[in-house]
């Protein structure tokens, strides 16, 4: 086989010549049809227009003839020879000597290089031929070559289509799997949150006293931390029945937020409780609590509101240490803030200056709270006035609903978030 240059006047002739050369060079069938299709596409315009093209083919050289290839390669590069004798290259140049412009080489089934001018070149690696040129004897007909190519191309397409099918299925499976995995992980997350929330609430409940049921009084409480999902801060309440049948209520707001202030608040409510149960008079309890706690918690500062209620008579007694005033709303709607001067635990000169005495008639509502309820808009006075209105509005509702209803109304605007306790007591006909 030698380099050849042929002038061609028809597509059929071009294809036929190329296929025979490719076959003789032992090109794989796929490369052969790619080469034939590509050359056809490049030359079609010229041949259709009746202008001949030149086909120059340089067959691969036998291994014992290194460098021989370079003879037919005017623009041969050194790296073309670097492939060594393991495989040769069939070089195909298609010259369009009469073409008015350079042909497009875009998207050819076998990419071509462009030489200067209107020439396209393919350098196609060929397998190492064993000994003699095995394909030279008994050359098949052109129809045979075409049929072979068609068969290979169809098989390749069908194999790809099958792969494509498997791959689409795999992607669909994966998509379903990802969805299911995501849901599973999110559900796990949700369960985790719920479990932790449960423990947190139980632990918080452990800090708070159980409900007290006393004929003649209805009581309910609402508490919410400054930050959602955070545990109780330093706002705490306590309520219990004293041996004489009166109800004692403590509301405390220990300095700071978070859990250290929870401990302080617990210290206060428990000290007050024990002192009250011990029989200490109400007017001395704020001061006595300060004394008792000062010995081991020097940092503790807390405002505290103490209330005593006789369920039978409705008699109310209040003591106070720096805590915002209790609110009393009469059945008829008149309301008053029950101010009692006094200073809280850890404050200078701690203790309630006096006791305030009043009386709840059936239907009257007492509201105890921490400043988080009234000072969410920063102005205590304004907050107390809003509280009076809110409590008046809600005072006939079921007792369990009142504290939350008041808090909701008070907190429509929050400029200064703070822990909040709202506790309501209503006297009912015993």
């Amino acid at each position, binding site marked *: 086989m030698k380099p050849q240059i042929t002038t061609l006047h028809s597509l059929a002739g071009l294809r036929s010549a190329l296929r025979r050369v490719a076959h003789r060079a032992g090109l794989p069938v796929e490369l052969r049809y790619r080469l034939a299709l590509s050359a056809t596409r490049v030359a079609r315009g010229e041949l259709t227009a009746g202008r001949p093209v030149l086909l120059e083919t340089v067959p691969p050289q036998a291994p014992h003839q290194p460098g021989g290839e370079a003879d037919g390669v005017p623009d041969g590069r050194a790296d073309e020879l670097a492939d060594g004798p393991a495989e040769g290259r069939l070089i195909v140049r298609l010259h369009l000597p009469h073409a008015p412009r350079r042909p497009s080489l875009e998207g050819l089934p076998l990419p071509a290089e462009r030489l200067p001018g209107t020439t396209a070149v393919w350098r196609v690696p060929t397998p190492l031929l064993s000994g003699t040129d095995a394909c030279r004897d008994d050359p098949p007909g052109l129809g045979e070559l075409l049929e072979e190519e068609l068969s290979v191309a169809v098989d390749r397409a069908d194999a790809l289509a099958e792969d494509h099918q498997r791959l689409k299925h795999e992607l669909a499976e994966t998509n379903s799997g990802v969805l299911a995995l*995501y849901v599973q992980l999110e*559900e796990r997350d949700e369960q985790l949150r719920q479990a932790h929330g449960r423990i947190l609430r139980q632990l918080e409940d452990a800090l708070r006293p159980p409900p007290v049921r006393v004929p003649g009084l209805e009581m309910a409480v609402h508490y919410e931390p400054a930050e959602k999902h955070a545990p109780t801060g330093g706002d705490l309440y306590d309520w219990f029945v004293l041996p004489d049948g009166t109800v004692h209520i403590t509301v405390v707001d220990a300095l700071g937020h978070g859990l250290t202030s929870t401990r302080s608040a617990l210290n206060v409510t428990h000290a007050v409780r024990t002192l009250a149960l011990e029989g200490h008079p109400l007017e001395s309890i704020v001061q006595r609590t300060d004394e008792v706690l000062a010995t081991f918690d020097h940092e503790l500062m807390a405002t505290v509101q103490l209330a005593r209620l006789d369920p039978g008579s409705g008699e109310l007694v209040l003591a106070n240490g720096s805590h915002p005033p209790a609110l009393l709303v009469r059945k008829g709607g008149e309301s008053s803030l029950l101010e009692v001067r006094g200073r809280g635990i850890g404050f200078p000169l701690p203790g309630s200056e006096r006791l305030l005495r009043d009386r709840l008639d059936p239907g009257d509502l007492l509201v105890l709270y921490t400043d988080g309820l009234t000072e969410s808009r920063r102005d205590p006075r304004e907050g107390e006035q809003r509280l009076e209105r809110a409590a008046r509005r809600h005072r006939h509702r079921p007792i369990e609903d009142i504290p939350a209803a008041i808090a909701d109304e008070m907190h429509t605007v929050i400029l200064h978030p703070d822990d909040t306790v709202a506790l309501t007591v209503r006297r009912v006909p015993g």
Partner: protein
Amino acid sequence: MAQRSPTASEGRSSGSSDDRSSGPPGEPWEPGAPGGERGAGSRYNVASEEDLLTVRHAVRAATVEAGFGLVDQTRIVTAASELARNAYVHGGGGSLEIQPLTRSGRKGLRLTVRDDGPGIPDVEEALGDGFTTGSGLGHGLGGARRLMHEFEVRTRPGEGTTVIVSRWNDR
């Protein structure tokens, strides 16, 4: 967790996942309402298996374009594929529209998947996560909802289904 405000009689349900990186602050995003600026949408038919792939590629490209990272790309592409497959399998074919969103300097992507199929008789049930039980793989609607920030279903028996989902970019 996810807020649900479905009105069963209307067979309509919307909600947003409580993902840490939820949409921009402000009022809840109302599809169709003025608010977030929206770019030109592209619409794709969903009438064949091949269309499902085309849609997947297009959504992937749109997520990249909108600057979503790999994890969010995966969320959105997965949800889109599921919704498109639903429209194809259960809705007898339909369309998917991709719309870039911009609000407060953040980018997002809205997908609207429509079909003229039989509709979903019980949206709440379809949204339930029948997944982990292993049995009813359902429509995967619930999964798609979790994957996106905003989610709305409009359906009525015999009148087809439209699912509108969107997700905002963290960056």
